[in-house]
Structures are given as C-alpha cells and as structure tokens.
C-alpha cells in the first residue's frame, strides 16, 4: 500500500466517512474509493452493496480477482429522551455495536443512575445536536413524547443524511407532529423519512420489547438499505 493512499484512507476514517480499498490480487494494484465516489466507479454495484453491509471480501470480476477492504465508521444511535424505553434501548444498542448518545434537558430523567455507562447530555437538543455531527452512519430516535424537545431534534435530523429517523407516538400523535413540523418549514419529502409509529410492528408492549422493535427497524434500515416492511 502506498503511504499516500494509507494517509488518504486514514483521513476518511477520522472524518467518519466510509471508504473502500480495492486491491487487484493478481497485480497488487490498489486504489481508494471514497463512499461519495462509489456510484461513479466501474465496480459500483459491488462497492455499494459492500458499503451497506460493511463487510470486506473478495470479488471475481471479468477483470480478475479483487479484494475489497471496507471501512465504515461504527454506527451511532442518538436518542432524545432519557425515558424508560431508552433505558432498555441504550444497552441493547451498545451490544449491537452502536455508540449511543442520549440527550434530554430534563435533569430528573437524565441521571447517571438511570443510565450507567451511557453517554448522557442533559441539555436541549437544538443546542447539543449540531456538535454531535450527525452523519450517514447515525440513527436518530425521538422518544420524549414532548414536542418542545423532540420537534427541534427531528428538524435537525431531517437536515442531515442519517440512515434512520424514528419518532415515538401513535398515528394520531404523528399526524399532529407532521402538521407542526410542516408549519416550521419541513417539506413532505423530508417528513416521509420519519418512521412513525417507531419500530417494527411486533406487538411490543414492555419498554424492552419496544426497544427490540426499534432496533429491529434500525437494523433492517442499516443492512437492507431499504424501507423495512411494517
């Protein structure tokens, strides 16, 4: 590997941008494909599939055997609401490999006692979220049920290319939420990105079951790269 390529790769990794190193196993020829350039590449189908799965591997092509080393940043889960569901959701998400951040300005909820070993920020989302640099490897879930907290956070998430946005609340709650967000300037095409009611429909009742349904939906979005079936 050329040092210049290694440095360029490390730059992408540090900036939390995905990239693939393509190595021709026959000749040793190597190139770096940044995620933004994957669609333009001659191997774009393979590259895009591998960027979604995050898995490195060997590909046979008419031009020979290539090894694709895939670098995707660890996924993150940003949640508004230090609520009961979040207490179950956060440790489960950590087991799935997510860096978890919970944001809730209500200091009665956001206590280290309720969230051991979880990154917790007791402040308003519109103040905090911009500094978190929400990106394509981030999932966002609005779980407070409180428009004062969830709405600004949703508007921020909608302005970013996070791979998943979900919001807790019934269909009725969501309909009124959509009206509010629209009146604040959000377009219909943007709003359709919100998964609500949040989570796959598995009849979840307890906070832990709701956490499972949310993580199943997030996983489907991450791994299938398409709208999971409700």
């Amino acid at each position, binding site marked *: 590997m050329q040092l210049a390529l290694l440095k360029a790769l*490390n730059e992408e990794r540090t900036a939390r941008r995905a990239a693939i190193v393509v190595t021709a*196993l026959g000749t040793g020829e190597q190139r770096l494909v940044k995620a933004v350039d994957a669609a333009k590449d001659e191997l774009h189908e393979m590259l895009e599939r591998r960027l979604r799965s995050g898995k490195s591997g*060997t590909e046979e092509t008419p031009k020979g055997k290539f090894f694709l080393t895939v670098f995707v940043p660890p996924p993150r889960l940003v949640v508004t609401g230090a609520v009961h569901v979040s207490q179950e959701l956060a440790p489960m998400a950590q087991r799935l490999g997510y860096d978890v951040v919970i944001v809730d300005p209500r200091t009665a909820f956001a206590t280290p006692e309720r969230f051991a070993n979880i990154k917790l920020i007791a402040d308003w989302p519109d103040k905090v979220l911009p500094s978190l640099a929400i990106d394509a490897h981030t999932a966002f879930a609005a779980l407070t049920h409180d428009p004062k907290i969830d709405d600004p956070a949703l508007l921020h998430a909608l302005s970013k290319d996070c791979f998943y946005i979900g919001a807790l609340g019934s269909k009725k709650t969501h309909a009124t939420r959509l009206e509010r967000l629209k009146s604040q300037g959000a377009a219909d095409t943007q709003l359709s990105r919100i998964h609500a009611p949040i989570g796959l429909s598995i009849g979840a009742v307890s906070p832990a079951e709701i956490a499972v349904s949310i993580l199943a939906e997030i996983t489907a979005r991450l791994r299938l790269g398409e709208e999971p079936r409700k």
Partner: protein
Amino acid sequence: MQQENLLGTAAAWRAEGRKVALATVTETWGSAPRPVGSNLVIDGEGNFLGSVSGGCVEGAVVAEALDVIESGKPKLVSFGVADETAWEVGLSCGGKISVYVEPVT
C-alpha cells in the same frame, strides 16, 4: 465494531522511518477466529500489532511480512488444515484463512 487504530499506527510507524508491512485477512473457511478485513501491522524489526487469527499464525505472518518488506512485493498466503504447515504454525482450530501481505511504501 470498535477497532483499534491499526492503520493510524501503520502510517505513524512509516512516518517515523520504520519499514512497515500490512497483513489483511482476505478469506476464511470453517472456524476462523478473526473476520475478513482484520489487520496485522508489522515493522521491519518484527514488532506487530493487531491480529489475523486467535494468535495461531501471527508468527508465520510476521515472517512473511519481513520477507515482503525485503522484496517490496505483496503476496497472498494461506494457512489451514489442508496445508502441511498448518500444524507447524498451529492453526489447530480447523479453520483456513488467506492473508494478503503487502509493504507500505
């Protein structure tokens, strides 16, 4: 998911003027302890960080890496039960792996 920053180390070692090789698991069969894409970073003195197996074949990969650093040419090496050297280097878990070893130049 959390990976130590082996590629950062590779670049840093190179910047210090050390000779460096990078080994990457390209294929696995059967029970292999480290997934495809796992890295071992080796310097010209035989110092290494990371892993390509559960510690079974690292010694052999380091030897290959020193060879690669010397020749400047990458190579693809395999370890496994089908290989006579498997027992010698101790991949006794019954798995088989291919490792791409390349110089960082």
